């Protein structure tokens, strides 16, 4: 039985979440290219930017717009099972499986960005905080960092393939909404609540300040 309800366009992603999202592929590609060509100054800068972005996202995930909040889209095993059984997700934003990927990607980025600060490649370059810990420990963290980078790459690959799968096999375009902020839906649900852009700018400024302090210390 098919009931076709009229489709309407609603806004689901705010500007901060979209800008955050698209900064990541740019930064991560820059991180891999710079690591490969040993442009380590650029690598450190891009990695520190990622750290600030992730810190921002963690705060935005608790006090930001509705679809950006972890409580809105992280649903636990039951919710995932329900979704896989064909029930529509509660959130208009990330679906329950995508939510797991959001957490995995954020976690991997956080681990990489923090481990990078303490990493030492043993010969040429060390992160700005590597001098605070033992040399052998910093070298081991560098190895963890390098291995972790491939885990992130695998996660990002799965993430991209999943969106392509939605697009090509399920005829659901998740990519354009992450650019425009809008989806078309036949579901009769109230539109999500949004929090203002100035707050997001404030949070990011603080996050960037925290990272700068962490990396360079207090200006003397």
């Amino acid at each position, binding site marked *: 039985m098919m009931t076709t309800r009229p489709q309407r366009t609603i806004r689901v992603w705010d500007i901060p979440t979209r800008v955050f999202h698209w900064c990541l592929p740019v930064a991560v590609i820059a991180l891999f290219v710079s690591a490969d060509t*040993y442009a380590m100054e650029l690598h450190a800068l891009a990695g520190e930017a990622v750290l600030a972005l992730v810190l921002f996202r963690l705060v935005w995930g608790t006090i930001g717009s509705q679809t950006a909040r972890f409580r809105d889209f992280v649903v636990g095993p039951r919710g995932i099972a329900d979704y*896989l*059984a*064909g029930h529509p997700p509660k959130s208009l934003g990330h679906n329950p*499986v995508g939510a797991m990927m959001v957490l995995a990607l954020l976690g991997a980025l956080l681990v990489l960005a923090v481990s990078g600060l303490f990493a*030492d*490649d*043993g*010969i*040429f370059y060390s992160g700005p905080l590597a001098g605070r810990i*033992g*040399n*052998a420990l*910093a*070298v*081991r963290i560098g*190895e963890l960092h390098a291995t972790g980078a*491939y885990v992130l790459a*695998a*996660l990002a*690959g*799965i993430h991209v*393939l*999943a969106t392509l*799968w939605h697009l090509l*096999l*399920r*005829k659901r375009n998740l990519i354009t909404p992450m650019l425009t902020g809008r989806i078309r839906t036949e579901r009769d649900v109230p539109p999500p609540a949004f929090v203002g852009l100035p707050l997001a700018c404030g949070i990011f400024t603080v996050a960037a300040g925290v990272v700068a302090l962490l990396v360079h210390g207090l200006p003397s």
Partner: protein
Amino acid sequence: MTQDPRAMLRTLSVFTLVAASSLPATSLAASPKAERIAGYKASKLADATIKDALQAGNVSAVSEPAEAMAAFAARLTSLYPREVGDAFVSPSMEAILKNFPDFAQKADAFAASSRDLADRAAAGSPDLVQMRAALENLQASCLACHRSYLGR
């Protein structure tokens, strides 16, 4: 398009497998290449361990990692068999084969400096200042070879 949860899981697991198999194939086989990579990695850790020990003034902790590094350095050139052209495996291999005498000289410098450090560590009354200088020589030997053959 109906959504079949099992098809969805199947597709996800295929994605995972594809992604996992695209991870860098850690050649576990005991090839010269695997052996020298393991040796370089161990040397990196040995170098850091020695640096820690010298910073802490703990001379007795230098001997073991220094000996291990010297043993690796002494057979480094033999781990670059010239008849097996594995140029496609390592981008720097072509340059190494073309300039093998120079490469061997840099490997010798590595062997000599790590031997020197190991000998000083084993001496009756090791001199901390001289050992620090020896470690710097050793690190300079890593750098010199990497600059020439890895571009970094």
